């Protein structure tokens, strides 16, 4: 590897617009396409600081900076267009979190990489609306937080309260949300407001290891730990009244519930198993990458196919998981307000996946191509009229749900034409980490965080208070900067801002 000075590195980075930069070929070896990343003036120094730090350490130790990771992805076989970094990008395993890339399905050399999906397969966000207003909920804020906490088990090693046996799990892995529907846990309308209608059809539970299934079985219907949470939120600001009304959001003060969760230990095990398998396949097929973490396999190889089928099963697991929590949330609210979820109008506004690889058709240089689109820490953001978005959002574009960090705000955005042409219909997914977990633990006191929540009048229930500093707002980029960058760059459009009044987390 060539070691260059910071100034030499900068020669490969070129400003494209006020909100985007190009990473030229040669920044990393073997780049097949260029890279691009989106930042505003607040996020820009963070990106460049990372690069500068890595130059200082002569590339030894520490995390690879986001820009390098984007460039390494651009060197993978079969990539088309460009390797895209979204404003919330931060370093991750292989692919940076907030990096998306698409690979040509018709190129036999194209690869699929578990690092491009992430360990928490089909981690995503679901938003439920209610017809309650802040003034209805505020007096019982603490009780509601407790009730949600009692219904939805949280934390590392938590176990769910929906009884399931091994056979149920097999069926759920194959059927995804259709399983939840069949068993009566969710409403028929929930399905249409879910990416992929809550089911990946190519899921094959037989490609999933027994170990993954054992880990997954007791965890269905649990929130998990880390950055996952369930929040009671109120509408703080509406930027696009028309689009918001299409989602059933009429005015500020309206109460919504956001569930941010994924496939728990199940997805993690699927990813781990695949990485082991792929390392062998790479040797056999002589696949070379710039980073060992970018383990991958040809899409058409048995390892590639096995991974895609197992990943689909994990995606289905995550949808069943979020559906189970939807059921539990509805129960908790119905109990608290002594009515039915129907009467509370607790519909799913939308459910997005921000860690997933999907086969989609895109137009590249005027030619339609079938691509395997990896979105890791990146949300699909399809524009109005796209055939893959629900009929209710045909005129507004797909709702994009962006969860903030604990105690900060969250956003609903809508997809745009520009996203489709510039970023394969993708935008940001959240705040994006600024400090590593370890650094957060060292620098921040958890008591301060809890105190901070109190002053903001946010009810909070956590399973492991000592880990909350990892998720403190200070550890993250400012989510408002992130969504504003996407808005200004045109790859999504701001629609609604939500702020939390109750948080439960692991």
């Amino acid at each position, binding site marked *: 590897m060539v070691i260059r000075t910071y100034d030499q590195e900068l020669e490969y980075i070129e400003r494209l617009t006020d909100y985007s930069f190009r990473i030229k070929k040669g920044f990393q070896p073997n780049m097949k396409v260029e890279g691009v990343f989106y930042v505003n003036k607040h996020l820009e120094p963070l990106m460049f600081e990372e690069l500068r730090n890595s130059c200082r350490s002569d590339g030894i130790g520490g995390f690879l900076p986001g820009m390098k990771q984007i460039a390494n992805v651009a060197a993978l076989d079969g990539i088309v267009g460009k390797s895209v970094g979204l404003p919330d990008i931060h370093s991750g395993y292989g692919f940076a979190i907030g990096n998306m890339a698409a690979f040509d399905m018709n190129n036999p050399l194209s690869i699929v990489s578990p690092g491009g999906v992430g360990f928490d397969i089909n981690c995503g966000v679901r938003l439920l609306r209610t017809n309650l207003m802040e003034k209805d909920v505020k007096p019982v804020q603490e009780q509601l937080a407790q009730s949600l906490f009692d219904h939805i088990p949280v934390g590392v*090693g938590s176990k769910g309260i929906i009884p399931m046996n091994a056979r149920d799990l097999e069926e759920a892995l194959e059927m995804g949300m259709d399983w939840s529907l069949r068993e009566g846990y969710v409403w028929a309308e929930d399905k*249409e407001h879910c990416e992929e209608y809550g089911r990946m059809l190519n899921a094959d539970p037989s490609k999933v290891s027994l170990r993954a299934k054992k880990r997954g079985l007791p965890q269905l219907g649990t929130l998990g730990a880390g950055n996952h949470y369930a929040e009671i939120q109120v509408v703080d600001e509406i930027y696009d009244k*028309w689009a918001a009304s299409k989602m059933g959001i009429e005015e500020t003060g309206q109460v919504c519930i956001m569930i941010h969760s994924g496939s728990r230990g199940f997805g993690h095990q699927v990813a781990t198993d695949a990485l082991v398998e792929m390392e062998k396949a790479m040797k056999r097929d002589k696949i070379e990458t710039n980073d060992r973490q970018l383990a991958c396999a040809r899409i058409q190889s048995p390892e590639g196919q096995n991974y895609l089928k197992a990943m689909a099963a994990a995606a289905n697991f995550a949808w069943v998981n979020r559906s189970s929590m939807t*059921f539990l949330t509805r129960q908790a609210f119905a109990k608290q307000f002594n009515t039915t979820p129907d009467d509370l109008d607790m519909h799913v506004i939308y459910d997005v996946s921000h860690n997933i690889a999907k086969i989609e058709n895109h137009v590249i240089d005027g030619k339609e191509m079938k691509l395997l689109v990896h979105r890791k820490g990146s949300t699909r953001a399809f524009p109005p009229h796209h055939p893959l978005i629900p009929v209710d959002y045909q005129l507004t574009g797909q709702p994009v749900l962006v969860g903030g960090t604990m105690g900060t705000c969250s956003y609903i955005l809508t997809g745009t034409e520009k996203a489709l042409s510039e970023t394969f219909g993708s935008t940001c997914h959240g705040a994006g980490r600024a400090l590593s977990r370890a650094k957060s633990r060292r620098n921040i006191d958890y008591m301060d965080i809890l105190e901070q929540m109190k002053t903001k009048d946010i009810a909070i229930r956590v399973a492991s208070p000592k880990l909350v500093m990892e998720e403190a707002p200070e550890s993250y980029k400012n989510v408002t900067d992130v969504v504003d960058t996407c808005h200004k760059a045109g790859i999504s459009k701001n629609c609604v801002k939500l702020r939390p009044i109750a948080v439960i987390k692991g």
Partner: protein
Amino acid sequence: MLRNKLICLEHPNPNGVNVTDEKQFRNLVLWLEDQKIRKYKIEERGELRKIANPSWSTVFDKYKNDLNCPKELTSKIDQLNWIVAYAVKLEYLDNVDEYRGMTSEKLKELQESKTSAPSVKSVNPFDNLDFNSPQFVAGVRKLAEKFSIAHHPDHLQVLAAVSRIIKDNLNKEALKQPILEGKPFPIFEGQGMNQKDEDVEQAARILRLLQVQSVREIQTIINETIVETQSLTSDTPRTDTRLGQVGR
């Protein structure tokens, strides 16, 4: 005469019946009862059916009585004649409307038309309407005016539009719904259809709405189907709080 009546009754072999033959006589009586008169229930016809039975004539006597065959008729031929006539009468009464006013000329006409071309006589009065008569066109235009439907050169298209409005908005269910008050759909908000011509843009937006509406209808039917299926498959959603475990 008997032969003609048997033809009317659509007897399979009206020319070959020899009523003087006892066996054929009995068979004919049985056929009349089975196919035309149906005085007895099927299970009660057992005795009549035993044609070879030596005491069949007593059964026949009872049958005549049950039909109220006049006692004055003594010869078996007369009695048979009366029974056949009775069967014809029943047949006529079954379809009075069809047979009334039937004359030999008419029958002849009918038979001729039958042999030339099989015509389907429809009962739908609309089939006899001339959809292109000036009178009809004027009627459609008037109807359209009442519903404020825009002009279209093809009056049949206009009629289809009228029919749609009536079907959607004036059916029993729709009439029960209160008329919606409020703002009309903001058709010019949101992303447009990128048409330069304003009129084309408006038309495109309207077409888009219609498309969305029809897809919505399909989606609603899908949801209804799922709900129906759920009522069969749903295993009353269970939870068991004892299983729950909050993590570290």
